[in-house]
């Protein structure tokens, strides 16, 4: 039951990404092109998602266990550091170049699109490079 529910959440999320337009890189770049012909659609994606999310996280903060009785993993890290800023800058620049962020890229890969597959392959290499670098440097990891 728990496994089925996780699958369904992934499915709902993915359908939401496609319906919203997030899986179309040209639409994403149309939103990021603030000083050109600006397509504000993606602001509504964020708005719609947060309008639902804000209530659910207010509720989650009052609870100690999840529906299935397991732990509720709310992030405890509230540190604003160089890692957060540099990471977000790198991510944002990559997002602007290709028009893919991780979720929509995975959906495009699954639909068999060559560009999505290429992007995801490079993204996985990037994530592995990060993991290997972390291990070499031996710094304590701060994760959300």
């Amino acid at each position, binding site marked *: 039951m728990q496994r089925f529910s996780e699958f369904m*959440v992934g499915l709902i999320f993915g359908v939401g990404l496609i319906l919203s337009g997030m899986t179309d890189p040209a639409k994403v770049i149309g939103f990021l092109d603030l000083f050109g012909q600006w397509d504000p659609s993606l602001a509504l*994606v964020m708005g719609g998602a947060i309008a639902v999310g804000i209530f659910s996280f207010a509720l989650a903060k009052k609870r100690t266990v999840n529906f299935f009785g397991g732990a509720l993993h709310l992030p405890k890290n509230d540190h604003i550091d160089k890692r957060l800023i540099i990471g977000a800058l790198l991510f944002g*620049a990559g997002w602007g170049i290709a028009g893919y962020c991780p979720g929509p890229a995975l959906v495009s890969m699954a639909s068999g699109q060559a560009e999505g597959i290429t992007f995801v392959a490079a993204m996985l290499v990037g994530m592995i490079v990060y993991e290997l670098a972390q291990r070499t440097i031996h710094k304590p990891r701060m994760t959300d």
Partner: protein
Amino acid sequence: MIDWAHFTPWASLSGGVLIGVASALFILLHGRILGISGILGGLLPPKANDATWRITFLLGLFAAPFVFSALAPAGYMQMPRIDASYTMLIVAGLMVGIGTRYGSGCTSGHGVCGLSRLSLRSLIATGTFMVAGFATVYMIRHIL
């Protein structure tokens, strides 16, 4: 200038609501933050007792394009438009992979979940990657 021709308020708002519903279900039912880069990065490498939920969620996400095209009215599905070359897709993929892991999150984890739980850390991350995205598209479209 607003690009009214490509503006899709209802589809984007409804897609956003679905994304919010998925994030709400994930935290309340499973006690997890729905952040794609974190879910995926946690599989590199997979850890004992921490891989199954990630995989079932991702399988649901991968099923989304097939379910969407089965449900959507004929002709609704538009082919995504991708302007970036393969070289640029690889560069962008590497940046997104490293950046999202280094900054502990992407559009879903920081942008949707983080803002919904009113995290200042995620607000700063989201502001930073949005500005980086705007600046990158400005450079590519209007300067280079």
